[in-house]
């Protein structure tokens, strides 16, 4: 381990993915993540990789499909409306079981929306915009260090499950600078290694067997069997990939649920409330799919209300309610469109909510 470096989120994200073993990047510029293709265009050629600017986001995701099918470790990144364009390809990647690492540095929506930070892609990334029965693990780090650690690990998770893996950061994290400790670079998988480590890939080797990587299965019984196979895999992912951090649940009168930057804001709101004699706790989902429903079993009898703090009109509320299962009311504190609340605003709104439920 080296010493800490001060890095802008986007550049740290890109560096982490290279160190995690990705050597191929396909992308199309969009604010607030354009530093990623810029960084990749500069760094990848120096480090035995390839950078390719696609003609569109649809082009980028399908290039990553080709790269992954051939056994390469591909990485694509974009921001909200760009991710929307990539979702057709994500469904194909899942159907064909092709690993790709995806990063969404999200902004305000709907539509082209704004370039300021947002979390209104929650349903988009956890429910999917592509067609068919598929799942993509989504991780939502709250600091640049956590994002680096997850992005470093993501290519391996994608390879292990032969499935895309997504990391969701917000525009604020992409633009922010924070000291980070960069992990040691992993050895890259060379084309000579691919037939051994990814025998399913279309590697062009002379192993004799034919590799087929596709999502088309015209026979309904064949497709049903394939989808069942995918869901057996998703069941394992649900067990292995669930990640959550809980704080102060034992004696909390109010429990915040928040991810990404909003979790940091909620964390500060907890401290401010404590100074006013109100005990608050925090459930911070790190994996948004699989969602950490089980964390809500730790809610104590003292908790009067669960409050979602998010940068959307309450898209995470549905999952929170599935976790809370009616044990107490679930309320929302939100801003959207690229607007950000302050921790003080969260404190004031929380006090009002407590007056209602007490």
């Amino acid at each position: 381990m080296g010493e800490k470096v001060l890095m802008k989120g986007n550049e740290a994200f890109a560096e982490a993915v290279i160190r995690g073993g990705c050597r191929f990047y396909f992308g199309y510029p969009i604010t607030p993540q354009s530093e990623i293709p810029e960084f990749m265009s500069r760094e990848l050629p120096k480090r035995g990789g390839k950078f390719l600017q696609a003609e569109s986001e649809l082009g980028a995701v399908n290039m990553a499909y080709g790269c992954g099918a051939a056994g390469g470790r591909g990485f694509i990144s974009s921001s909200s409306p760009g991710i929307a364009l990539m979702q057709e390809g994500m469904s194909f990647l899942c159907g064909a079981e092709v690993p790709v690492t995806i990063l969404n540095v999200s902004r305000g929506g709907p539509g082209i929306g704004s370039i300021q930070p947002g979390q209104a892609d929650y349903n988009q990334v956890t429910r999917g915009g592509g067609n068919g029965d598929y799942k993509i693990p989504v991780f939502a780090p709250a600091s640049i260090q956590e994002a680096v650690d997850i992005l470093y690990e993501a290519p391996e998770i994608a390879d292990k499950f032969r499935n895309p893996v997504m990391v969701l950061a917000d525009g604020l994290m992409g633009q922010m600078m924070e000291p980070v400790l960069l992990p040691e670079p992993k050895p890259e998988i060379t084309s000579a290694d691919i037939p051994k480590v990814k025998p399913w890939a279309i590697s062009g080797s002379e192993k004799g067997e034919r590799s087929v990587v596709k999502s088309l299965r015209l026979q309904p019984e064949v497709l049903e069997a394939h989808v069942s196979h995918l869901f057996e895999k998703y069941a394992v992912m649900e067990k292995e990939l669930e990640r959550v951090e809980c704080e102060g649940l034992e004696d909390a009168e109010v429990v915040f649920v928040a991810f990404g930057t909003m979790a940091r804001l909620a964390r500060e709101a907890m401290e401010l409330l404590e100074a006013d004699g109100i005990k608050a706790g925090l459930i911070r989902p790190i994996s948004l799919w699989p969602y950490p429903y089980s964390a809500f079993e730790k809610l104590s009898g003292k908790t009067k209300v669960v409050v979602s703090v998010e940068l959307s009109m309450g898209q995470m509320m549905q999952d929170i309610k599935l976790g809370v299962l009616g044990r107490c009311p679930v309320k929302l504190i939100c801003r959207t469109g690229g607007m950000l609340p302050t921790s003080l605003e969260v404190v004031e709104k929380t006090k009002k909510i407590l007056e209602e439920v007490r």
Partner: protein
Amino acid sequence: MATNKLFFAGSGGQGVLTMGQMITYAAMYADMNATWLPSYGPEMRGGTANCTVVISPDKPVSCPLIYEADNVVVMNLPSLTKFESLVKPGGNLFVNSSLIEQKASRDDINVYYVPANDIAIELGNPRTANTVMLGALLTVAPVVPEEKIYKIMEKTFSGRKAHLLDINKTALHAWKPE
């Protein structure tokens, strides 16, 4: 030492983002936790540029977003108008009096009028105005050790920029409180 929240505002080209970065680097070199958050997007073009720095000596920074600041630096008049209210009661406001004739309106904060551009011109390099201001801030509120500011200066002003190191070190001490 408690968390210290700092805010720097001015127009593009006045070095406000750099001031914040210097303090963030210095905090990291001093093994403190820190976040640097710039404003981004259209408001940077022609309008105000600003950045927020949060320094936390012993625990991770809870929140990189602030609702009030211990120390606020304003380099031009629109920034004074917009961000004077951000200073927390008892906090410090540093006003670039070379470009801002107006006085601050609050009396529950400490206001320091620093003629940063005039001092920089006297030193022989008008572009050191932001370093003069950074020095004023650190003189009043030593939030990071001075030797760590020197360390990042030595890294920044090296190679082709090495000739700028001495004048910036001088600029750091050019303003004295009355």
